[in-house]
């Protein structure tokens, strides 16, 4: 199958993730949007690696996975803290610091 | 030429004095703000003595500098010192004085002790505040000396801006007016605004200095005034830079239409502060025009001269007219200064040796006369139970305080340039110089003399003649301290008025130099006319 299709897919996924972050209101969902972006990047990296025929891209994917994991840990911790403090997981409720 | 670093000492000494002043009575328990406890009074006493002595030493040093100065070559910078400061920016610590600068240094050094004397009982007897006030004054003095002697544009700019901070605190922190904070901020914003725009020009100017091919860097003394003069500038750029510089200076030397901060300041600051501000600090503006704008941007200066002259004339008349309308005496004096600064600027932009030297001389005279007016007005106000500044609250003070009245009259007359007083000489010179170059301007400006007479005499009449005002009936006449202050100033006015020669020796050559630098020649017939008129 044509490799570039994977690229298109990754771009689409990335865009989806970005839109999720920007539009959705549930923090967890927003958070998932970010993860989606990261994984879309992974897809792109791996595809490029295949195109260029070297493994750098795949190695990078590994690193990205680690970073994504770390982000999950930190982010989930913060979100859970807020959720426990306010019984709500909506972005809109987090507005004490309105500028 | 002596190798003794007169100027550096002149700059450094006030700082030392300021430090000493600020530190007096520190060991002792500092009295609570607003309450003059015994210890406070005592430390206040020591503080002001220390300050006064410091200021007097400065005066002595200035005298020393005068002796070291070679009047024969007043046009060249003397007592020069040059050390690299910020090589990366091509800035160096370079000081030196020509005649004009020296006179202005003398003016600043001379006025400060008087101001200190005048401020003897100010700040509501709050020792701490008085101490800080005096210290700040001395710091300001140091800056003023430095700015007059700076021969490096960067250095000049830095001090030019840095001066604002002590001045700002003098107005806002120690002022007496109700809106002093507003005045202070207004002053600061005006000056900083001008200053920052000037900064852009300074940078631009710096980048005009050709890069050394070898190192790819600019020379380490690129900012020396001498290195910046005579650069081949693109006319447009030159005009822009000139505009920026001129704007900054015009704001500083309050000139129509950017003078509006001045009356507020004079109204709200202490007379002493106003003296320093108007009589010395603002001279930096005119001084800058003379020593930076003209030599650095000759083309642009000539190009801009007509507009400048028009503005100058406007401010002459405008200041005078508004002065007449004022009810607040300090505000009034402020407006008179606007008018006088108009004269100075007019003189500078005549590009004739007579006119330029006239306005150089006038910087000195105006300093003295206006200083006298401010301080004397201050004395009058101090005598008013409510410290009112309204002319209408006074009356007939001549009878209760004859000396005050007399001296005030003399100072006033000098403000309207009565022949025989210093200001007359300079003003007539300005007129002569201007007549050669811009006859129309002179014709328009002459009425200002009449206006001046009006506002001075009206004020005098309202405050000092007629029935004695109820509130000032119990006022005492000037005490010894105040007599000294008044006496010195009046004496200076009279002496300079009767024998202006020596002083003029200091300004003539620099004037010719700047006229030459700006590339103008004295229009012959006018000089002839000058001779004629002087007979």
């Amino acid at each position, binding site marked *: 199958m044509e490799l570039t299709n994977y690229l298109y897919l990754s771009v689409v996924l990335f865009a989806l993730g970005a839109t999720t972050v920007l539009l959705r209101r549930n923090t967890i969902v927003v958070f998932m949007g970010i993860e989606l972006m990261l994984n879309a990047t992974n897809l792109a990296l791996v595809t490029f690696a295949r195109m260029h025929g070297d493994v750098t891209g795949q190695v990078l994917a*590994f690193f990205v*996975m*680690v970073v994504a*994991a770390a982000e*999950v*840990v930190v982010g*989930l*911790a913060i979100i*859970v803290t807020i959720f*426990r403090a306010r019984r709500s997981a909506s972005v809109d409720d987090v507005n004490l610091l309105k500028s | 030429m002596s190798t003794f670093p007169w100027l550096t000492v002149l700059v450094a000494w006030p700082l030392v004095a300021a430090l000493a002043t600020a530190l007096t009575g520190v060991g002792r328990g500092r009295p609570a703000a607003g309450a003059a406890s015994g210890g406070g009074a005592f430390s206040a006493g020591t503080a002001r003595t220390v300050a006064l002595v410091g200021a007097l030493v400065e005066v002595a040093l200035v005298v020393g500098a005068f002796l070291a100065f070679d009047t024969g070559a007043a046009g060249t910078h003397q007592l020069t010192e040059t050390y690299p400061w910020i090589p990366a920016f091509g800035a160096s610590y370079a000081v030196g004085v020509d005649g004009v600068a020296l006179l202005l240094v003398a003016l600043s050094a001379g006025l400060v002790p008087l101001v200190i004397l005048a401020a003897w009982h100010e700040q509501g007897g709050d020792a701490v505040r008085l101490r800080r006030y005096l210290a700040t004054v001395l710091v300001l003095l140091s800056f003023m000396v430095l700015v007059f002697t700076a021969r490096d544009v960067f250095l000049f700019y830095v001090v030019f801006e840095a001066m604002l901070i002590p001045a700002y605190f003098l107005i806002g922190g120690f002022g007496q007016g109700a809106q002093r904070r507003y005045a202070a901020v207004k002053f600061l914003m005006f000056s900083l605004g001008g200053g920052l725009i000037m900064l852009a020009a300074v940078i631009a100017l710096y980048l005009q200095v050709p890069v050394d091919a070898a190192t790819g860097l600019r020379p380490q003394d690129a900012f020396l005034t001498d290195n910046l003069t005579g650069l081949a500038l693109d006319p447009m750029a030159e005009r822009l830079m000139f505009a920026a510089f001129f704007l900054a200076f015009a704001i500083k030397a309050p000139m129509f239409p950017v003078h509006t901060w001045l009356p507020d300041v004079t109204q709200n600051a202490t007379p002493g502060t106003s003296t320093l501000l108007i009589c010395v600090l603002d001279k930096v503006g005119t001084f800058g025009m003379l020593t930076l704008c003209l030599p650095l941007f000759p083309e642009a200066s000539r190009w801009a001269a007509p507009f400048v002259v028009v503005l100058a004339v406007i401010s002459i008349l405008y200041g005078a007219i508004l002065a007449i309308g004022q009810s607040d005496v300090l505000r009034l004096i402020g407006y008179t200064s606007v008018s006088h600064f108009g004269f100075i600027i007019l003189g500078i932009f005549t590009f004739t040796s007579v006119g330029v030297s006239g306005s150089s001389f006038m910087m000195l005279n105006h300093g003295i006369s206006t200083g006298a007016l401010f301080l004397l007005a201050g004395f009058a106000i101090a005598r008013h139970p409510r410290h009112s500044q309204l002319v209408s609250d006074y009356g007939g003070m001549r009878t209760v305080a004859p000396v005050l009245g007399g001296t005030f009259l003399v100072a006033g007359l000098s403000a309207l340039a009565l022949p025989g007083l210093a200001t007359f000489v300079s003003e007539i010179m300005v007129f002569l110089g201007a007549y050669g170059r811009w006859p129309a301007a002179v014709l328009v400006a002459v009425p200002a003399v009449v206006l001046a007479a009006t506002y001075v005499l009206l004020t005098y009449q309202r405050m000092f003649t007629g029935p004695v005002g109820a509130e000032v009936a119990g006022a005492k006449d000037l005490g010894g301290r105040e007599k000294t202050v008044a006496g010195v100033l009046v004496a200076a006015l009279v002496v300079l008025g009767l024998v202006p020669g020596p002083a003029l020796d200091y300004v003539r050559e620099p004037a010719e130099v700047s006229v030459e630098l700006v590339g103008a020649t004295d229009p012959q017939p006018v000089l002839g006319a000058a001779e004629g008129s002087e007979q």
Partner: protein
Amino acid sequence: MSNPYVPVLVLMGIAAVLALGGVGASAVIGPRKYNRAKLDAYECGIEPTPHATGGGRLPIKYYLVAMTFIVFDIEVVFLYPWAVDFTVLAGFGLAAMLVFLALITVPFVYEWRRGGFDWV
């Protein structure tokens, strides 16, 4: 055939059919005699707690486990390639991996000492 993943797809297809088919079949065949009690959540006869799904709160411990798991899962992810190429990477690989394991162990020890694994 060239691509070894195709058979997996085949198996997946069959598995999916089976999974769907079974449920479908029971849905078709099975009787339908519903009543409210039958459709309620089973809680030993007491009134069911409302909305166990949305507001269903769990002990915070579970989040802790989840996060710790992520860390170690990643560790495993890095261990496998190294293990497979163990002989190739030899000394350097081993050294690097030991450092890596040490670094992973530090937070493990931290969590341990701070009671992250005590379910009391």
